[in-house]
């Protein structure tokens, strides 16, 4: 093998975009073997395993950090459009290099640690926040055969590792020795624990129907088309639609995004657990929040939107990994859209929504999915499961969220 052969393979690889990432990885491994032969060593297999792991890790981290950088400018652009202004347009073409400017600004800012703060914990908190967020994307199947670790309990892995961010928020809030920090951290943890229940429940529903906890298996269960054009995605079933919406809102709340951004509510809590953070540590929190948001939306794509499957049969010429990122980009856009549209919840509204609506609805969706599964997945199953989610929906809406006004049972809200 020589270097020219390796170079010649590049155009060949580019001819089939479907397998481009996998072939690219193989090329890098062959390149390492060639490097070894250059020095006169037969490269042992463990080195190749190590290089394989490193290539995957570097690729995932690079892709997600680039997405974070692009998202930070894209979000401001969309928000600006929603508010009828231009948004960042000074740095580079269309303001595309804004993240670079932001990064330099963050790096050169003074890093202030409060005098009374617990300095070690204050330092550790951003790291504890970022590490789980960067671990999460490894289990998502990005394309056919493209998954970093094909875990049989991948969904469980996601929630287990995701639990780390709650600890990190507590660390940040407690170590700052600031009442706004600790209040914000308490709110954030209360919110995350409350919304974790519907989040996990809706994932459980999908695991129940797909019969597996492995993300790849779940995506494969959604392959194929009904009547030749209608994709078998779980979002297009009654229970799946409900579970998908519940998952979407829970994901919003878990990643502390508007309208669930109360932990950082500027008007009440300065910036919540981020109050005493500045410079690069603040940037790390910001980064962790965005990477976590991408990861949880990637899980939504995997669970409900068919993962890397194309929406229509004739669109399969676009490679599968492109479809994953197209869907992810669509979800990211919708998140910004929601942020531009919705005002922030009040804390009691948020809690009521979680416990009185989301949780009962997720149980209803679970029953509905079981009915769909046992009624044979045909039209009958459709009808039964649709009724089973519709009844709780309207009942909950009528009994819990409609105020029945009359002269004497009018309850005055705190804000009145």
């Amino acid at each position, binding site marked *: 093998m020589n270097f020219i052969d390796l170079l010649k393979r590049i155009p060949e690889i580019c001819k089939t975009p479907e397998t481009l990432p996998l072939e690219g990885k193989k090329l890098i491994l062959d390149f390492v073997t060639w490097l070894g032969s250059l020095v006169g*060593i037969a490269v*042992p*297999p*463990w*080195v190749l395993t190590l290089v394989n792991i490193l290539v995957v890790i570097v690729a995932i981290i690079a892709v997600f950090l680039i997405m974070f950088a692009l998202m930070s400018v894209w979000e401001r652009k969309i928000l600006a459009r929603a508010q009828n202004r231009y948004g960042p347009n000074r740095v580079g073409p269309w303001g595309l290099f804004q993240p670079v400017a932001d990064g330099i600004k963050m790096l050169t800012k003074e890093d202030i640690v409060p005098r009374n703060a617990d300095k070690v*914990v204050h330092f550790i908190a951003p790291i504890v926040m970022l590490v789980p967020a960067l671990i999460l994307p490894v289990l998502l199947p990005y394309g056919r055969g493209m998954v970093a670790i094909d*875990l*049989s*309990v991948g969904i*469980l*892995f996601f*929630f*287990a*590792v*995701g*639990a*780390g961010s*709650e*600890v990190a928020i*507590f*660390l940040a809030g*407690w170590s700052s020795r600031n009442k706004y920090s*600790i209040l914000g951290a308490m709110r954030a*943890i209360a919110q995350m*624990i409350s919304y*974790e229940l519907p989040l996990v429940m809706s994932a459980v529903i999908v695991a129940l129907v797909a019969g597996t*906890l492995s993300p790849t298996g779940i995506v494969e269960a959604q392959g194929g088309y009904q009547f030749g054009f209608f994709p078998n995605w779980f979002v297009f079933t009654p229970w799946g639609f409900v579970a998908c919406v519940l998952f979407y809102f829970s994901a919003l709340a878990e990643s502390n995004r508007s309208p669930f951004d109360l932990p950082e509510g500027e008007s009440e809590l300065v910036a919540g657990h981020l109050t005493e953070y500045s410079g690069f540590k603040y940037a790390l929190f910001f980064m962790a929040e965005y990477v976590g948001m991408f990861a949880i939306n990637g899980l939504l794509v995997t669970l409900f939107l068919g993962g890397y499957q194309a929406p229509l049969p004739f669109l399969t010429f676009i490679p599968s990994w492109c479809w994953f990122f197209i869907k992810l980009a669509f979800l990211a856009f919708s998140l910004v859209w929601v942020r531009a549209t919705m005002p922030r919840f009040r804390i009691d509204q948020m809690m009521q929504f979680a416990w009185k609506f989301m949780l009962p609805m997720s149980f209803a969706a679970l029953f509905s999915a079981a009915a769909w599964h046992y009624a044979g997945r045909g039209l009958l199953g459709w009808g039964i499961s649709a009724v089973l989610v519709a009844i709780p929906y309207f009942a909950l809406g009528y009994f819990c969220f409609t105020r029945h006004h009359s002269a004497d049972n009018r309850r005055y809200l705190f804000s009145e």
Partner: protein
Amino acid sequence: MHELFQKIIALPWDQAPQWLFLIPAFVMLMGAAAAVMLRNLIHCALCLTLSFIALGVLFMALGAEFVGFVQLLVYVGAVAMLILFAILLTPAGEVAASNNPLRNFKFSRAFAAAGGATVALLVLVSLLGAIFFSPHARAVVPPAQAAIAPVKAIGENLLNHTLLPLQATAILLTAALIGAALLAKEEKKS
């Protein structure tokens, strides 16, 4: 230089994963020791959390992925947060040093140490007994089969053989939840 490099390459590196478990084991022991010794209660809780995480990693290193992830989910996600909240919500200094009745007792420290040591010893003896005298410890299972219990098998076992204990636990937890909600709802009248 070249020979040294080749010698390093030739070391049995593919055996290394077998010894990697030493890292989480060390972290776990250090975390547990720090949780006992540190003065600041929050620091203790955090070290305990570190110990929980390392234990989960140990499970995963043994191939028991499901148990490892459940360990992380339950202990780091729930138990650690519970401990931290319990420490935060307990009013500090309620038992003031002067009011502590044991303070006036002469050998209180010695007695406390002796009691702690007794409990620790009893736990150690019972654990060792469980390890060495239980029939499961003697059973020779090929490691590959022993480690990877599929989630399906666990679920079927849980809902067939141990259904009654599972339901009993569920009722107990629900009762505890309702009780906690009742306690929390009671407001002090000022």
